[in-house]
């Protein structure tokens, strides 16, 4: 039986898609959300470290599964290999209702004003496609505010002198510092830095009908057992469903956006839970499947006017994939500083996001999430024993003395770091899979060297010994949970995929509403920005909807 035609079909129930679905349904549009995963909870994997979204050695807790999904990695020499979702290099993002927002560490950052004007501030380094966003921070500000209040953020930007301007404070008070953060705060002030509490999409007080945080150490990488973490699955998606206008279809794997002979989106072809091929027609389509899968879906949507994929006549779909080059320093304190209070990360510093001579941007620094026991076996100074009694002794005597400060370096986009579809390899449903290729820009490593040096300086001031730094290499293509940039928004169709509202150039009823739009990815965890973009795109569609006249074929 044919599916009933709706006003909008949204692909992906994550940070961007969940928000967009709510905005559209509240504006009176009938909406179908297609989500490849399903509803999941803490009970599905409990606090099992080996099947979490942070340590995936025995599988991804919240998908995608290794049995039905795969990708191809293309190395610099042109050779390829197949990678499974739980393996390194796949660049996994959770496949479930809420996507990464179910199990994330839940930092709720606004990007800074400068992050939207990178090219104007720094020029364009050779070998890069660095550019300004077509929108300013000021234009997006009210969307950040909606995300903070409708989803829930605990924080106090008044303590951060580098914070961008805001009209309303964050809705919940910030979390207090743990012992590690109290030590770091004093040291940072002695150095003239500006410490402040990390804004968190997590309840510091009861909010949104959900209780306050109980501080699990198994927080980052896990679902919350009491729903104190604020994701789209426990906020905007239930709100969308409550309108009565939105239907969420889980286990629905999108294969193709249907584009007709006149170049208009007609709906989405997908496979349902029983692997049956289905078509959902709609007046407009919103793709929010994460930077890698959104690009794949567009590239797999070939039509007469778009033989290389929807919106891809200028070969920009899938280009410029970014994540974050994580960098920082670790050290050991003389005394135990461990506190049984998860998730651990609670203090941050924005002193090194911008304005360092010779560097394009930088990174926020913060103390780290508690490393669980297996993950911690890899946290060692260079040259330390990798096994045997000495390794065990380190684990026993040093785990609770670890002090760590890390941050996400804003990556400089590279045109050839990209998502394509593989000409041969297909997934369980016969859909061509992603082929990833390229590597980071060398400047990312320069920034990381500087920022990790600052982290080491802080640890030294805090009294740590045995300090060592982590500086990432060029790696393969970046991405992972912070993946972004593959369907860049811009004002010139020749050098971008969508306009400033996420509307695909030349297909005016096809929208993107996820991190794919990010021209640059900030020196911050991008979840709140992706949520803000969900509001931004959703509000534009709602405004232009005009009872449907605007998008009728």
């Amino acid at each position: 039986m044919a599916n009933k035609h709706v006003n909008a079909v949204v692909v992906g129930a994550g940070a961007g898609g969940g928000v967009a679905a709510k905005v559209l349904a509240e504006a009176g549009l009938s909406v179908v959300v297609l989500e490849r995963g399903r509803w999941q909870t803490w009970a599905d994997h409990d606090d099992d470290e080996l099947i979490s979204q942070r340590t995936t050695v025995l599988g991804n807790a919240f998908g995608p599964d290794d049995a039905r999904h795969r990708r191809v990695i293309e190395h610099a020499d042109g050779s390829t290999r197949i990678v499974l979702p739980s393996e390194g290099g796949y660049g996994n993002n959770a496949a479930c209702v809420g996507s990464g927002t179910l199990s994330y560490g839940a930092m709720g950052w606004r990007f800074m004003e400068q992050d939207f004007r990178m090219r104007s501030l720094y020029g364009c380094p050779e070998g890069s496609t660095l550019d300004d966003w077509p929108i300013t921070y000021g234009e997006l500000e009210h969307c950040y505010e909606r995300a903070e209040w409708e989803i829930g953020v605990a924080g106090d930007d008044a303590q951060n002198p580098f914070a961008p301007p805001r009209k309303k404070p964050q809705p919940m008070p910030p979390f207090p510092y743990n012992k590690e953060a109290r030590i770091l705060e004093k040291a940072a002030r002695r150095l003239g830095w500006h410490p402040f509490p990390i804004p968190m999409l997590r309840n510091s007080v009861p909010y949104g009908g959900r209780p306050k945080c109980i501080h699990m150490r198994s927080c980052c990488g896990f679902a919350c057992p009491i729903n104190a973490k604020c994701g789209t699955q426990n906020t905007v998606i239930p709100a969308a469903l409550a309108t009565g206008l939105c239907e969420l279809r889980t286990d629905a794997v999108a294969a193709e956006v249907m584009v007709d002979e006149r170049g208009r989106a007609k709906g989405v072809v997908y496979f349902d839970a029983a692997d049956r091929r289905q078509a959902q027609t709609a007046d407009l389509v919103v793709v929010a499947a994460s930077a890698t899968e959104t690009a794949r879906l567009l590239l797999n949507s070939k039509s007469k006017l778009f033989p290389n994929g929807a919106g891809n006549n200028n070969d920009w779909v899938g280009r410029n994939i970014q994540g974050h080059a994580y960098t920082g320093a670790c050290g050991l304190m003389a005394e135990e500083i461990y506190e049984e209070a998860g998730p651990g990360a609670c203090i941050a510093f924005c002193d090194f996001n911008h304005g360092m001579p010779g560097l394009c941007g930088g990174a926020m620094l913060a103390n780290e999430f508690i490393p669980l026991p297996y993950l911690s076996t890899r946290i060692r100074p260079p040259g330390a024993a990798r096994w045997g009694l000495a390794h065990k002794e380190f684990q026993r005597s040093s785990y609770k003395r670890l002090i760590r400060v890390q941050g996400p370096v804003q990556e400089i986009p590279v045109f050839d770091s990209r998502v394509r579809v593989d000409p041969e390899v297909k997934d369980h449903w016969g859909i061509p899979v992603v082929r990833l290729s390229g590597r980071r820009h060398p400047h990312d490593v320069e920034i990381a060297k500087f920022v990790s040096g600052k982290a080491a300086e802080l640890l030294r001031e805090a009294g740590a010994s045995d300090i060592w730094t982590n500086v990432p290499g060029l790696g393969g293509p970046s991405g992972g949970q912070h993946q972004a940039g593959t369907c860049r928004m811009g004002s010139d169709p020749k050098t971008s995929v969508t306009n400033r509202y996420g509307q695909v150039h030349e297909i005016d009823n096809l929208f993107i509403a996820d991190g794919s739009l990010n021209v640059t990815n900030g020196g911050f965890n991008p979840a709140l920005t992706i949520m803000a973009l969900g509001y931004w795109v959703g509000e534009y569609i709602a405004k232009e909807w005009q009872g449907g006249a605007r998008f009728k074929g």
Partner: protein
Amino acid sequence: MAKSEGCGASRRACLKFMAAAAGGAAAGAGGAALVGRLGPAPRGPFGVLTPEEARLVEAVAEQIIPSDKDPGAREAGCVTFIDRQLGGPYAKFAEKYRRGLACLQKTSEAMFGKAFEALAWPDQTRVLEAMDSGKVPKEIWTDPGAREFFNLLRDHTMQGFYGSPRHGGNRGYASYKMMGLEYPRVIGQNRYPETAG
């Protein structure tokens, strides 16, 4: 422990095994007894590993995380963890284990003229150090590579020791206890500071 189980293959192998078991206290760092603080280590049956392979894996794992004042890999059941995963998510590594364990045994024979389990503790360490540094007879280690296989055994042993007991290792939360981490955490009963995190 089930003496009969491992003794089917050959009398020689069996005698070697018995000798290794008897010498365990003398050879192991800190004298890893087969019956430890956690009670007897599980003895199979194993789903993927042969009894001989299981004993070898167990001996290697014990070198990677030796028993001392706290339990080591043997007591924590790391071999059970590994065997169970080889029949599940690590089925993709099963062939590599089969070939790698045979290469490891050949290396032991080449270096010291004995099976790995029969070696004195310091000689076992030397075999693994040779693998870890890649300084092994090249003709033995064509596939998998010595370092590659050692890293696999190392990672899997660490996972068995430090991961959740539901997968067969970390018996009695041995590693959590060693690290001073409370477990199980019962919501409302553990000491969660109201003021931090």
